[in-house]
């Protein structure tokens, strides 16, 4: 409530700078701290890279960051991260960047069924928020929330999971990115449709074919707590990290 009143008086919410070239400008300074953002897109659009870069920049500025990998073993993800110039493996040694595999959590909690009960969902939320509290995590990525949703199955359960988790994370001042996978033809921003309605923000990544080139694009569709551009940008994955340029410019570049 105090946040709402503060915003009404024009006081800006504290921002969590993504550190991604161009994205903080689009967001007028960064993601409002404590927001839960859905990063959505089909495969190969850069969701994981964007999320990892968000964490690395956080860790570089001294914030404790947690990556929960659901589908891929985190050791494999790390291998992909090493080539980036912005990455520093001391971040891991110093405990600023922590990787956890969701299957390890499932295993410890004995969650083996294909559909979790509400009780099991609460256990999972408690386990994740417990670790966030224990380590005082300020930035969290779950890659992907869609894989978790596979085991929640119903809209009610997905809603329960994301709301409860989002609330717990926001209480700790933790800014979170939930990676969501959709097929390219999907009209929605998320697989189940529920995730997008609950999230505080949606960043959509996509592919765009232009003159024989397949461009990666990025668009901020929704972001509570800040004004932002809704324009589509071209996303470039470079060794120094993600670069964002307005689509028009990117398009003209391709025409050269």
């Amino acid at each position: 409530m105090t946040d709402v009143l503060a915003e009404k008086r024009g006081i800006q919410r504290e921002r969590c700078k993504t550190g991604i070239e161009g994205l903080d400008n689009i967001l007028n300074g960064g993601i409002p701290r404590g927001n839960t953002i859905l990063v959505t897109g089909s495969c190969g659009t850069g969701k994981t890279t964007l999320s990892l870069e968000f964490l690395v920049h956080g860790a570089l500025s001294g914030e404790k960051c947690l990556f929960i990998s659901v589908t891929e073993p985190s050791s494999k993800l790390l291998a992909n991260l090493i080539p980036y110039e912005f990455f520093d493996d001391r971040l891991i040694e110093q405990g600023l960047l922590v990787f956890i595999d969701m299957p390890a959590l499932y295993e410890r909690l004995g969650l083996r069924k294909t559909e979790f009960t509400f009780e099991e969902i609460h256990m999972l939320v408690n386990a994740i928020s417990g670790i966030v509290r224990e380590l005082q995590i300020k930035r969290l990525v779950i890659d992907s929330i869609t894989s978790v949703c596979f085991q929640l199955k119903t809209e009610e359960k997905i809603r329960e999971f994301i709301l409860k988790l989002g609330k717990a994370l926001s209480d700790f001042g933790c800014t979170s990115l939930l990676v969501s996978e959709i097929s390219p033809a999907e009209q929605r921003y998320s697989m189940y449709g529920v995730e997008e309605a609950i999230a505080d923000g949606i960043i959509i990544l996509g592919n765009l074919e232009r003159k024989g080139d397949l461009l990666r694009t990025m668009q901020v569709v929704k972001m509570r707590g800040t004004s932002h551009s809704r324009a589509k940008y071209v996303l470039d994955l470079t060794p120094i990290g993600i670069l964002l340029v307005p689509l028009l410019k990117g398009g003209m570049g391709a025409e050269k």
Partner: protein
Amino acid sequence: MVETVSVGIEGLNEALLKGLPKGYTLLVSGEPGSGTELFAKQFATAGIGKENVLYITTTERTEDIINTMHEFGWKSDMQIVNIATMYYEEILAKELEISKYRQEGIGVNDVKNITLDESKMRATNFLTLANYRVSRLKPPFRIVIDSIDFFMEIYDRSDVLSTMRLIKAHSQHHGGVVCITMLKDVYDRATQSGLEEIADCVVELQKEKTQLETQLKLFVKKVRNHPEKGETLLLEIGDKGFVAKPMK
């Protein structure tokens, strides 16, 4: 003449087809306390020395099986697959660990840098295990499954039925015999009928309490292609085990 083997109980062989034809599956059902477990052991011992005997138990400790058999002076030289013990070690012990995490919560060190052993994570499928052990048997063989209820409890009914069908087909092909014990009247009709349909012979054990004494009876419910068979026999327990006698 069909070749038969003894089911191990005097009097019952005659009520079937002068024994149990090779390749046949016998289903023994009864209420708790009606003697199905003892029946299973007596059936097993009847094959020892002549057949390879595989005894799959889901309820007892191995030493309890052996001790019981020795009490009656039965041979116990058979392969015992103790699913009860495996289930405890693999599943129940793990459940205890899980309850600790659920109760006390998870710390980052409980999950960080954990390499999950996929083979350990994937729980043994005991149906597959039973099927596998059966497939390794060299004919002539005799198989006892005591009891099917454990499988019914933890697996889909249809999976249990298809495994029993596989085991039956295997023993049919190799001329072995199978004895399966099952609790009576606890499953839905489709499941019970399904199992009775797979079995070539079905016997029911009944425990009846009269004013003065308790009587054990055995009802021959089914003998394949012999609908005329359907005797009820009195079961007595002597120092050599069950003896079946005609009702007076």
